C-alpha cells in the first residue's frame, strides 16, 4: 500500500521538474479519476446487501464520527486561539 504514496511523491518531484510547463489538464484528469473511483465505490456499496440493509446505522456512525472529530479539532483550535491572542481570558 506504500506504492501509492511513493507514486504521489514521484509525481511531486516530476511536477516540480516540469514547473516551467503548464500542466492545466492535470486537474481535469484528477476530477475524472475521482468520479470514476466514487462510481466504483457506489457499485461496491450497491451490490453489497449487508451495507444497503445497514445504511441507516452506517449513516449514524458517520455522523457521530463527524461530531467527535470536529469537536476535538475546534477545542484544539480554541486552545491555540487562547494561547496566541487571548491570554487575559476575555472574549476575542
Amino acid at each position, binding site marked *: *500500500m506504500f*506504492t*501509492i*504514496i511513493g*507514486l*504521489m511523491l*514521484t*509525481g511531486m*518531484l*516530476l*511536477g*516540480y521538474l*516540469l*514547473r516551467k510547463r503548464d*500542466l492545466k489538464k*492535470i*486537474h481535469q*484528469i*484528477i*476530477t475524472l*479519476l475521482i468520479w*470514476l*473511483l*466514487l*462510481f*466504483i*465505490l*457506489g*457499485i*461496491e*456499496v*450497491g*451490490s*453489497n446487501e*449487508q*451495507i*444497503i440493509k*445497514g445504511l441507516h446505522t*452506517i449513516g449514524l*456512525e*458517520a*455522523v*457521530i*464520527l*463527524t*461530531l*467527535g*472529530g*470536529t469537536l*476535538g*479539532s*475546534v477545542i*484544539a*483550535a*480554541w486552545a*491555540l*486561539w*487562547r494561547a496566541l*491572542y487571548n491570554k487575559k481570558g476575555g472574549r*476575542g
Partner: protein
Amino acid sequence: MKGSLIIVGFFVLGTICGVCHLLPFDITETNISYYALCALMFSVGLSVGNDPQTLKNFRSLNPRLVFLPIMTILGTLAGSAAVSLILTHRSITDCLAVGSGFGYYSLSSIFITEYKGAELGTIALLANISREILTLLAAPLLVRWFGNLAPISAGGATTMDTTLPIITRTAGQQFVVVSIFHGFVVDFSVPFLVTLFCSI
C-alpha cells in the same frame, strides 16, 4: 459546491447500478480501482509539485499559526479516538482512519475502501462530507464559541478551497493565508495518516 454535488452524484449513480445489477461484469473483481487510485495519486503529486506559487505565498504567514494544522490533526484524532469508545464494534484504528479524512471525502473514502472494504469506505465518505457541510453551516457559531481559528480547524483539508469563502466571511479576511496554508498541510497529511491507521 457544484463540484461536490457531481461527485456525490457519481457515488449515487454507482449505488443504483450496483443495486439493480446494471453492469454486465463485476467491476469489484477487477483491479480497475487500484490502478485508478495509483493514477490519481500520481496526478495529485504532479499538480502539487507543479504549483510552487502556493508555497511562496506562505512566507507572509504569521509563524505562530504554523501550529494550527497540528492542532487540527491532534484534536480530530483525539475526538475520533473518544468516539471509538461509543462505537464499541469499531476498532480505534478504524475510527482514526475515518477521522483522518479531515473532510477530504473523495480521497479518504477511496483509500479506506481499498484497504478496509466498502463498508468503512462508505462511513468515511458520509462522515467527511458531513464535516464539510457542518463547517459551512456552523462557521459563525464556531467563531463565537471557540474563537476565530475554529472554523479553520473544523474545515480540515477543505480550507484551501470549498470552505475558504465562509472562513474569510466569518473569521475575517486576515485569515486567508493561514486558511490556505492549513488546508495545504492537512490535505497533504490525509494519504499518510489514512494509510498509517489502515495498516496498524
